[in-house]
């Protein structure tokens, strides 16, 4: 067990290194990174001074060293616009994104799982076909368009819901719907195929042979097994929702890290952009590590596979 955990931590460390290296190299790819790392509108002398200050004339490996060292310390630079350390900014916005992701995930599971079950149980008939249409729509409609349509309908035409900002329950409804819509379709699809596979298994056949009522067969025997891959996917998607809700947060002016990223690129506030990608990416790597170790703790078979 210990070797497994150590090995897994090792992988994560390598991933983190590669992540920081990627970001570091890409920034320097453009030729003169000073342009990015300096406030827009700075004069030539300012740029030269900043270049020296940031050590951009030093050898590459040395620059990388400082980069990583400051990242580990939590120093990701200061935002040009807000004039505060980016990490502070990021952490202050994170809770909003977590809230939105939680709401969206709840919505996607409440819609996705039952419809997937219904689709699997009524294969080829109405429930399944309706489900197929729903999943196609969900996977084909861009999230931000769904958001815009919702605003059009519920804010402009009906005037029921606020179109931007956060603070009350009413503010959360539309953004979480827009964010969760795509994932609801994805979860429905997986639930359906997983259920179908389980319903065709030998132990379900035997459960029926034992004369168990159909509802018991489905709920007790089939469902639990079928939900395992779905919940795994949901976990992966949750992290995705937290980190990649850029467009939905922008459309609804939701004050999360996605919106922060948008501000960063709109105002050419590069430290924000760089930091968001670094922190977001690192967060994902760490969460993956924790999840993998947890799975190994729960299921002893996994420890020996790697």
């Amino acid at each position, binding site marked *: 067990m210990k070797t497994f955990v150590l090995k897994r931590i090792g*992988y994560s460390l*390598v*991933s983190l290194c*590669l*992540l920081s290296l*990627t*970001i570091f190299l*890409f*920034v320097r*790819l*453009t030729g003169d990174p000073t342009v*990015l790392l300096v406030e827009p509108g700075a004069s030539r002398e300012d740029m030269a001074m900043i270049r020296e200050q940031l050590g951009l004339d030093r050898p590459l490996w040395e620059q990388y060293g400082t980069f990583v060292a400051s990242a580990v310390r939590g120093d990701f630079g200061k935002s040009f616009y807000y004039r505060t350390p980016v990490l502070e900014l990021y952490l202050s916005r994170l809770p909003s994104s977590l809230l939105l992701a939680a709401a969206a995930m709840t919505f996607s599971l409440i819609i996705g799982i039952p419809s997937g079950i219904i689709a699997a149980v009524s294969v080829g*008939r*109405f429930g399944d*076909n*309706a489900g*197929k*249409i729903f999943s*196609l*729509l969900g*996977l*084909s*409609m*861009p999230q*931000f*368009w769904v958001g*815009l*349509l919702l*605003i*059009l309908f519920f*804010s*402009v*035409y009906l005037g029921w819901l606020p*179109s931007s900002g956060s603070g009350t329950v009413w503010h959360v409804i539309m953004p979480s719907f827009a964010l969760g819509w795509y994932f609801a379709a994805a979860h429905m699809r997986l639930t359906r*195929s997983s259920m179908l596979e389980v319903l065709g298994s030998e132990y379900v056949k035997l459960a029926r042979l034992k004369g168990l009522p159909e509802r018991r067969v489905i709920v007790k025997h089939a469902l639990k097994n079928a939900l395992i891959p779905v919940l795994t996917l949901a976990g992966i998607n949750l992290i*995705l929702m937290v*980190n*990649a809700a*850029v*467009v939905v947060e*922008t*459309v609804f002016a939701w004050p999360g890290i996605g919106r922060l*990223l*948008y501000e*960063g*690129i*709109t105002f050419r506030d*590069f430290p924000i*952009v*760089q930091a*968001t*990608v670094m922190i*977001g*990416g690192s967060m*994902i*790597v760490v969460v*993956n590590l924790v999840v993998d170790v947890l799975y190994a703790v729960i299921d002893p078979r996994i420890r020996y596979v790697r």
Partner: protein
Amino acid sequence: MAVTRADRLTVAWRSASINLQGMPVFPVAILVGLGLVAIFAGVLAPHSSEVGNLGERFKPPAWQQGGTSNFLLGTDHLGRDVLSRLMFGARVSIMVGLLAVVVAGTIGTALGILSGYMGRWVDQVIMRVTDTWLALPALTFAIFLAAVVGPSLWNIVIILSAVYWTRYARVIRGEVLSLKEREFVRLAIVAGCSKWTIMRRHILPNVLNSAIVLASLQLGVVIITEAALSFLGVGVPPPQAAWGLMLADGKKGLMAGYWWLTVLPGLCIMMMVLSANLLGDWLRVKLDPQLRQL
């Protein structure tokens, strides 16, 4: 026996899934239609897509009150004809989508084959990079790259390729790993073929099916990402016509109720992605039943 709503839905579904000589009619027709519009936009479009008449701003579509037949689908905030912009936007979406998918697919498949077949440290290096890049959400990564290299049509293609090749690498590598154990590969090794020959002549044709299926499934995703990037302002730069950009502009008129600027471009995106997804689904079932779990 009364015809229930359920029956009607089933009939509608069945007719939508009509296969003609095996090909799903509607998705292919839509994609071909959009392709033709994209190619002949210059001829078909009634107006310029980039220059507008400020005196004609925010005109609604022809069938609504206030609309004219001159601007069938209305105009935007700069007085530009929506229909023309939609047509030229099709060009951008298709071009970017196809190119990005092809480039990403090529790189990803090549690296996947190398990684899967060569094994050992080559595999380790490529897989570590792939896993790391896969961990980053595509949109976030794309935004970062766009912020670094600056927005332009070609840059978008490069960025999207750089973000999405990892999907192919993973899947193809898995396939190669199982192909390696098959008889005909072993025979080729015994016969003395070089690694490169085997990869080229034996492995590549066998993974091509998976690559194509994956590409068709990715097309929709890539198009949506491009639209998102343009919407955020780091995609196709104005004044060019791109559906994502139109949606961003449309947001300005949203609270005033200018619905056509939001609904129409999004509808186009949805139609294209829907068709690509349906085509991809059909291809997946047709070309390789093993991939059904994708």
